[in-house]
């Protein structure tokens, strides 16, 4: 005769297994839900931030376009020229100032026959041909040029010879005038 199991699950001691599987189901669903919820939350935040970005971008474009008026363009052009002038003024070496400095440091007995300024990258080369009475006066004149100021460097006599008219010495003096900023 076949045996019939009339005992319920509770009685057969299988109950803990069923509880465990239920718990596993619940925990599984909870962990899935948490995972999905976190993803959903992050996605929501991303969309919200993107919307805020869109709004900010539109506002930036709007503000930039508001600035695109004729008045602002005119102002821009003027400021552009002012900046150019400022830059050029900073780098300009006044030839008049240089001439005045040389005049102040020319001895009464010295006479110029040639004076040449040539602008180089950050200094001006000055090439002067002077006529003086003798070599002592020429030496004095070279010394006088070197006293123009700290801007002056390398004052040297390039050549000297008797003047064409035979009335003194003609000396060619070269020196450099540095830009001081």
């Amino acid at each position: 005769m076949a045996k019939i199991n009339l005992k319920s699950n509770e009685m057969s001691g299988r109950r803990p297994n069923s509880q465990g599987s239920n718990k596993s189901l619940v925990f599984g669903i909870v962990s899935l839900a948490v995972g999905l919820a976190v993803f959903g939350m992050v996605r929501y935040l991303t969309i919200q931030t993107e919307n805020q970005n869109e709004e900010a971008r539109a506002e930036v474009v709007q503000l930039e376009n508001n600035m695109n008026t004729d008045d602002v363009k005119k102002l821009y052009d003027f400021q552009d020229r002012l900046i150019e002038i400022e830059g050029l003024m900073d780098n300009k070496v006044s030839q008049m100032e240089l001439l005045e400095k040389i005049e102040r440091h020319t001895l009464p007995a010295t006479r110029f026959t040639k004076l040449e300024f040539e602008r180089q990258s950050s200094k001006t080369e000055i090439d002067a041909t002077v006529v003086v009475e003798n070599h002592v006066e020429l030496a004095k004149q070279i010394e006088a040029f070197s006293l123009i100021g700290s801007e002056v460097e390398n004052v040297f006599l390039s050549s000297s010879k008797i003047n064409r008219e035979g009335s003194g010495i003609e000396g060619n003096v070269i020196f450099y005038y540095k830009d001081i900023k």
Partner: protein
Amino acid sequence: MKLKILFFPIALFVAFMITIFFTKPEWDIYQEKQEELTKLTMELDDLKSGNASIENATKKFNSLTPDQESLVLNAIPSEEKNDDFLAEVHKSAETSGVFIISTKIKNPQINRANRNILPGSLASMTPTRTGVTAEVSVMGSYIDIAEFVKEVDSHNRFTTPRELLIIEQQVIADVAEEEISVENGSMIKCELTFDFFSKEKNEKLQIANLIRANDPVIKSLLSGQFKTGIIEDYQNSITREVFRPVSAGSAGKEDIFSR
């Protein structure tokens, strides 16, 4: 039953996978967007304050006198305007009492043609300063020549000197003898080489594009640095008066070879 028990580890694994493959990349995107938002907010704040600075600068600009405005526009005009340059040199020669022997303007067009600008670059949006070299030869006494150099130094049209040659002349031309009176000292010849500039006006200027391209001029305006102080410095140190451009007057002649 076994499947039910296995559901938790499987679900945990799936949740982990969701985190790795979906939530993490999404989080990275979110952070990028947040950074972008911070940048945009800062840009917006800068623009709002910049807008106020530009409004102030516009008010200042509108309150400048016509002479102050002309002084700057003449210093670096929008066109080469060689006629005005010549007129200004002539005026300086007249004031200082020297005689102009020759004037030469070196290749004004070449500078412009040589500009090699990439389309879309900042340089293509903004005009570039063009420099032209001029050579002027004059004759007179040293005192007059020094005065002429001073005059050219203080032209309203901005000039930067390149070379100066002052040389004693032994032979004096007949024309010069008649027209120049030299009281003290010998006749001197002066060759002056200098640059003068122009900068084209860009009618299609797009301020918005310049802001995006971080143009230094618009940046200075946005940060409230409208450099009106330069006008005063320029007027004080270089220029004595605003140059009034020449006009052709009434032109028209039937026999163009007649005197």
